[in-house]
C-alpha cells in the first residue's frame, strides 16, 4: 500500500518538477504506446491431436504506455491472459501491471528505477529481455545506472530481481559492465585514432555479475553468492570484423545441472569479411555448464541470466524451421560458416537482374567429457568435440530475379537433428532430413502481388515426409489474403497423414493491423533467437489486433 502510494507520488510529481525546471526548453511531454491482442477459439480435432479447451476462447493481450518529457521518461505495461493461449505457461493466467519504470537522463548519466531490460556484451552472463510471442520476460525490477565518465568509456551497473510470471524470482542480481572504445578514448590525444581517419575500431569490454540466494537446503551446502565474469574484444574495419567473448562462472549447483559444483565457461568467436556483393563469415562457440539463472531451482525458460543462442542459421520457411536447434547450455561445441555472393547484373550467372547465392553450414556436437563420480560431476576437454552429433545443417539459397515482375528463390537443405538430445525426450533418435523450397513472387501491378511457396521435406524418421503449399495475395497498402496447407503424407501411421490447412486475411492501416485466421496448427516448436516454446496442436478461429500510437 505504502509502496504503491510512493510510486504514484513519484509519477505525479516528477514530470511536473522536470517540467517546471525545463519549461522553456521542452514544454509539455509526449505520450505513446502500443496495444496488442491475440484471441483464439479452440475446436477439437482428434486426427491432429487438438484437445478440448474448456474456456473455448482464450486471449493474450497487453498495452504499453510511455511518457516522455525532455530528459524524463516513465511508462508501464498492463498484461492480461484470460486465459493464456495454449502453449503459454498456465502461471501466466491473470491480469496485472507487470512493468513500470521511470528514467532520468542527462548527457553522461542515466538512472532507471523500476523495471528495465539490459544486456552485457553478447549476453553470455547477463541478458534481461522479452519475447512476448514466446512468453519470455525476465525483466529486472530494481535500479540501473549508466554513466559515461569520459569519451569512449561506458559504464553500467544494475541491481534487482527478475520477473517470474506475475511475481519476482528469489535471487538478487547485481552486475557491472564497462566498455572502452579505444578510438574514442585515444582520438582526444592522437587525432590519427579518430575512427573516420583510422578506418578501424578497437573495443574492449568486461562485466561482472553476481546473484545471491539463501541456502535453505537441508543436506547440501550451497553457494549463496555465485559470481560470473566475462571479457570481450571487438576489432572492426571497413571490410573485416572480429568479435570474441569469454565468460567464466564459479560453482553454481542448480536443478538444471544436477547440483554439480563444477565451474562453468563459455567462449564465442566470430569473424567476417565483406565487400559489396561478397561476404564470408565464420563463428564458433563452446559452452560448458553455463546455464546461469537467478534461482537455482528454476527450469525451462524461467529466470535466465545467461543468453546463449544457437549460432546456426535461423530459418523462416515452415519446413526448414521444423527442427529448430537450441543451444544446450550444459555443454556443446559448434561452428558455423557462411559464404554469400551476388553475381552482378549482366554477368553469365547474374543474368539481367543479378543472382544472390548463399551457402551456409553449421554443426554442433556435445563436449568430450569424463565423469568424475564426485560433486564436480565431470571434466571436459577444451578443444575436443564429443562423439554425439546434436545438429548439422547444410543449406544453399539462390535468389534470382527473372523480370521486374517475377522473383524466385530456391532453397535446398540437408539437416541432421538429434531430437532426443536437443528436445530432451527419448525414443525418437536422430532425424535426417532433405528439404527443398521453391518460392515465387509475381508483381501483377504496383499494388497487387501474388506469392507462392512449395516446400518438401523427406525423412524416414519422426513424423516422416511433409509437403507444404502456401499462396498469398496482397493488395498494397491495406490487404492480404493467404491459404496454407501442410500435409504429413509420409507419416508411418496411416490415420495420422493429416492436412493442416489454414486461411487468413488481414487489414493494415498505418500502424494498426487486424488479422483473422482459421484452420489447423500442427504441434511444433516456435523459436526466436536462442529459445523455443512448444506449441500444441490446435484448431479454430483466431483474431489478432495490434496498434502503435
Amino acid at each position, binding site marked *: 500500500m505504502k509502496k504503491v502510494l510512493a510510486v504514484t507520488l513519484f509519477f505525479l510529481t516528477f514530470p511536473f518538477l522536470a517540467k517546471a525546471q525545463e519549461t522553456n526548453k521542452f514544454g509539455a511531454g509526449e505520450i505513446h504506446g502500443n496495444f496488442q491482442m491475440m484471441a483464439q477459439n479452440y475446436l477439437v480435432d482428434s486426427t491432429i491431436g487438438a484437445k478440448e479447451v474448456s474456456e473455448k476462447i482464450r486471449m493474450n493481450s497487453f498495452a504499453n504506455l510511455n511518457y516522455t518529457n525532455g530528459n524524463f521518461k516513465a511508462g508501464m505495461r498492463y498484461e492480461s491472459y484470460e486465459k493464456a493461449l495454449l502453449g503459454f505457461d498456465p502461471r501466466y493466467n491473470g491480469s496485472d*501491471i507487470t512493468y513500470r519504470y521511470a528514467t532520468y537522463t542527462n548527457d553522461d548519466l542515466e538512472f532507471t528505477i523500476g523495471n528495465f531490460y539490459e544486456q552485457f556484451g*553478447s549476453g553470455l552472463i547477463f541478458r534481461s529481455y522479452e519475447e512476448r510471442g514466446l512468453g519470455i520476460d525476465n525483466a529486472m525490477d530494481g535500479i540501473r545506472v549508466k554513466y559515461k565518465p569520459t569519451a569512449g568509456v561506458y559504464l553500467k551497473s544494475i541491481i534487482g530481481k527478475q520477473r517470474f510470471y506475475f511475481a519476482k524470482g528469489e535471487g538478487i542480481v547485481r552486475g557491472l559492465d564497462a566498455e572502452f572504445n579505444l578510438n574514442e578514448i585515444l582520438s582526444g590525444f592522437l587525432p590519427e585514432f579518430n575512427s573516420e581517419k583510422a578506418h578501424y575500431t578497437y573495443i574492449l569490454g568486461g562485466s561482472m555479475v553476481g546473484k545471491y540466494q539463501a541456502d535453505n537446503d537441508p543436506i547440501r551446502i550451497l553457494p549463496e553468492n555465485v559470481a560470473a565474469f566475462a571479457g570481450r574484444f571487438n576489432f572492426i574495419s571497413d571490410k573485416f570484423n572480429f568479435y570474441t567473448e569469454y565468460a567464466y562462472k564459479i560453482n553454481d549447483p542448480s536443478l538444471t545441472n544436477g547440483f554439480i559444483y563444477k565451474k562453468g565457461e563459455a567462449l564465442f568467436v566470430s569473424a567476417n569479411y565483406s565487400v559489396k556483393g561478397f561476404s564470408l563469415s565464420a563463428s564458433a562457440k563452446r559452452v560448458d555448464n553455463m546455464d546461469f539463472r537467478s534461482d537455482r531451482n528454476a527450469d525451462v525458460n524461467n529466470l535466465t541470466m545467461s543468453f546463449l543462442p544457437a549460432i546456426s542459421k535461423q530459418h*523462416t520457411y515452415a519446413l526448414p524451421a521444423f527442427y529448430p536447434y537450441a543451444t544446450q547450455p550444459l555443454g556443446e561445441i559448434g561452428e558455423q560458416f557462411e559464404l554469400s555472393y551476388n553475381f552482378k547484373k549482366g554477368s553469365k550467372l547474374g543474368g539481367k537482374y543479378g543472382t544472390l547465392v548463399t551457402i551456409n553450414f553449421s554443426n554442433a556436437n556435445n563436449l568430450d567429457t569424463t565423469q568424475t563420480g564426485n560433486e564436480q560431476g565431470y571434466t571436459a576437454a577444451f578443444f575436443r568435440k564429443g562423439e554425439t552429433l546434436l545438429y548439422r545443417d547444410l543449406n544453399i539459397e539462390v535468389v534470382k530475379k527473372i523480370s521486374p515482375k517475377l522473383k524466385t528463390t530456391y532453397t535446398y537443405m540437408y539437416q541432421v537433428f538429434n531430437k532426443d538430445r536437443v528436445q530432451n525426450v527419448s525414443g525418437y533418435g536422430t532425424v535426417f532430413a532433405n528439404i527443398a523450397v521453391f518460392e515465387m513472387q509475381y508483381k501483377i501491378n*504496383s499494388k497487387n502481388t501474388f506469392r507462392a511457396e512449395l516446400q518438401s521435406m523427406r525423412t524416414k524418421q519422426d513424423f516422416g515426409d511433409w509437403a507444404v503449399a502456401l499462396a498469398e495475395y*496482397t493488395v498494397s497498402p491495406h490487404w492480404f489474403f493467404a491459404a496454407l496447407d501442410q500435409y504429413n503424407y509420409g507419416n508411418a501411421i496411416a490415420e495420422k497423414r493429416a492436412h493442416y490447412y489454414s486461411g487468413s486475411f488481414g487489414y493494415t492501416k498505418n*500502424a494498426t493491423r487486424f488479422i483473422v485466421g482459421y484452420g489447423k496448427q500442427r504441434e511444433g516448436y516456435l523459436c526466436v533467437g536462442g529459445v523455443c516454446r512448444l506449441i500444441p496442436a490446435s484448431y479454430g478461429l483466431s483474431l489478432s489486433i495490434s496498434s502503435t500510437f
Partner: protein
Amino acid sequence: MKAKKITLLFLFICIVFSVNAQNKIPAVNVKTIDGATFNTANMVNDGKPIIIDFWATWCKPCVQELSAITDLYEDWQKVTGVKIYAVSIDDARNSARVKPFVNTRGWEYEILLDPNADLKRAMNVGDIPHTFLINGKGEIVFQHAGYAPGDENELYEKLLGCINPDVK
C-alpha cells in the same frame, strides 16, 4: 493490491493525456555497424526528412521491403534528400551477420544495431517490419506496420507530402 495498481494506471493515464502529443524520436543508445555508440537524438539530416525502418536478417518481409527501396533510394534522395536508418533488431545470434548481409546486397542505408530492442521498445514497435517517416522538423508524420509489395509507393507519396505539404 490489484485495485491500487489499477488506480495507479488511471492516474498515470490522466497525467499523460493532459499533455500535448508531439511526435519526436526518443533518445536511446544503439550501436552503429562500426561499433560506435550512437544516440538516436543525433538522427539528423539538415532539415530534410528521415525514414527509420526496423528490420532483422531473419525477417523476410523486412528484407523484401529494404530490397525494394534500395532500387529507388537514389531517386528518392535526389528528389527529397531523405536519409534512411535501417535499425536491425537481430540479437546476439545474428548481429554479427548484419554487416555481411547488408554488404552482399549492396544496401546504402545507415545501419544501426539494436540487439536488446531498446529503441524498438522506446518507439513502441510490436512486430517488424515497422517504418517511421520523420519530417525536417524531427516530427514523426507517418508510420506503417508490416510490408506488402507496393507499400514503398505509399511511403514515397507521404515522403513527397512532407517535403511539400501541398502535395497530398
